[in-house]
């Protein structure tokens, strides 16, 4: 089931005018920012479907930018996010795509700082709820509603067990887990949604494990 909480239906508390095109857009931007772990110097927003058609009237641009700046759905600064982004020295671009995609409200965010770049594709499924569907070419399913770990690792046996063991040691329960890879034996992505926040020590332990390339933490 896509909707698991009554607060997906009654909520979020948000700045108008659209839960899918404003609040959802802000949430996708915010998760992208958490994944990138810093404010990007340059960000491109590729808009698809209804996002491409109606983004201006819904404040979608402001919301996406605000999300990337770290603003939440109820943050009054969303209304004037471009001013804040300009002030922060960020450059951005909105691109309306004609390509037909699976979900009507889809955005691909490409963030760049120097040589570091990241591509995040998210969909806004209604009522402010979102899902991150793709990260740097890896398929995933991330709601952004729970604390989560995203672990990029070499596709070898034992890596998943080691990450799970590190969490078990701290009595952190795994709510949802997904692994995906582009090619056997190459890079893989492990996404672990947990019920409670993950402490720095556990994080370091997973980072130090063999074959782990990068660990990113996102929280509620």
């Amino acid at each position, binding site marked *: *089931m*896509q*909707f*698991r*909480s*009554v*607060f*997906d*239906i*009654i*909520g*979020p*508390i*948000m*700045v*108008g*005018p*659209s*839960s*899918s095109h*404003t*609040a959802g857009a802000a949430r996708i931007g915010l998760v992208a920012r958490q994944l990138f772990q810093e404010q990007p110097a340059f960000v491109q927003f590729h808009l698809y*479907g*209804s996002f491409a*058609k*109606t983004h*201006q*009237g*819904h*404040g979608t*641009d402001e919301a996406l930018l605000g999300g990337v700046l770290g603003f939440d759905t*109820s943050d*009054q600064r*969303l*209304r004037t996010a471009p001013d804040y982004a300009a002030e922060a020295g960020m450059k951005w671009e909105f691109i309306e795509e004609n390509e037909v995609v699976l979900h*009507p*409200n889809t955005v691909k965010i490409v963030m760049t700082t120097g040589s570091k770049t990241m591509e995040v594709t998210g969909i*806004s*499924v*209604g*009522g*402010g709820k979102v899902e991150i569907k793709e990260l740097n070419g890896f398929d995933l399913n991330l709601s952004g509603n729970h604390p989560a770990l995203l672990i990029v690792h070499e596709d070898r046996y034992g890596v998943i067990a080691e990450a799970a063991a590190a969490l078990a040691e701290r009595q952190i329960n795994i709510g949802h887990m997904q692994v995906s890879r582009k090619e056997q034996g190459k890079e893989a992505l492990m996404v672990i949604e947990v*019920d409670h926040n993950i402490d720095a020590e556990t994080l370091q332990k997973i980072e130090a494990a063999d074959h782990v390339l990068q660990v990113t933490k996102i929280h509620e």
Partner: protein
Amino acid sequence: MFKTVEELVQTAENENIQLSEVMIRQEMSVHDRTRDEVMSRMEENLNVMERAVNRGITETVKSVSGLTGGDGKKLHEYMMLHETLSGNLTLDAVSKAMATNEVNAAMGTICATPTAGAAGVVPGTLFAVKEKLHPDREAMIRYLFVSGAFGYVIANNAFISGAAGGCQAEVGSAAGMAAAAIVEMAGGTPRQSAHAMAMTLKNMLGLVCDPVAGLVEVPCVKRNAMGASNALTAADMALAGIESRIPADEVIDAMYRIGSSMPAALRETGDGGLAATPTGKKYKEEIFGTGVHS
């Protein structure tokens, strides 16, 4: 976890508890939260709704485009000063629903129920019925859990966004949710709540999402008005003992099938319906033609 209206109603009947209690208990167990946590989080939503309603009926809000604002206040004043035709409770709900949506269109703070475009119906009816039934704060919070329970079933079996299923999925769902909650607050049975939801949603099937200039304003504000009055009427019908011949779950299925066959032009793209009328297109040109972004 309940997946259908039938399961929701049966749980309430078997355990002899209210629908709101079924939703509260599920939220506590699925997300490992205490009753206090769940209740106080919902109260925050209630507080935001109350502020939006009060702002909309006392201030003349204006959207960035200038298309909407001030009508909720206008209707509320009319209702206070005149002998009305459709009755004060209905108009109170309608004016408060419109007020909330006007605050939303003005980029004010609201609580999505289930969406922002349909955010007026549930609080509009709640704060009107409150004047008649004088519920305590807990009963008002419970109203939101009943609304949420039905919205939860609709969202998981159909859709709640205009882009996915048209306005029937947004204002239609919101009105159905409100009708069910009114029935519980008025002392009706869980099954009467389900009939009220079914009768409300039946009357909104097929409603398309065709916002002028793609903005959540025209006709959204006035559709929230209609959603609120529809919910009140259906709630009274259910309380009178009238039943929906088509069960609630099948009405939700019908809504899903209708929405799935709606062309994209009628699903929040701003390309069809009222958006494509000469006047609708003229507004769009006036708003965006000059390069002004909202």
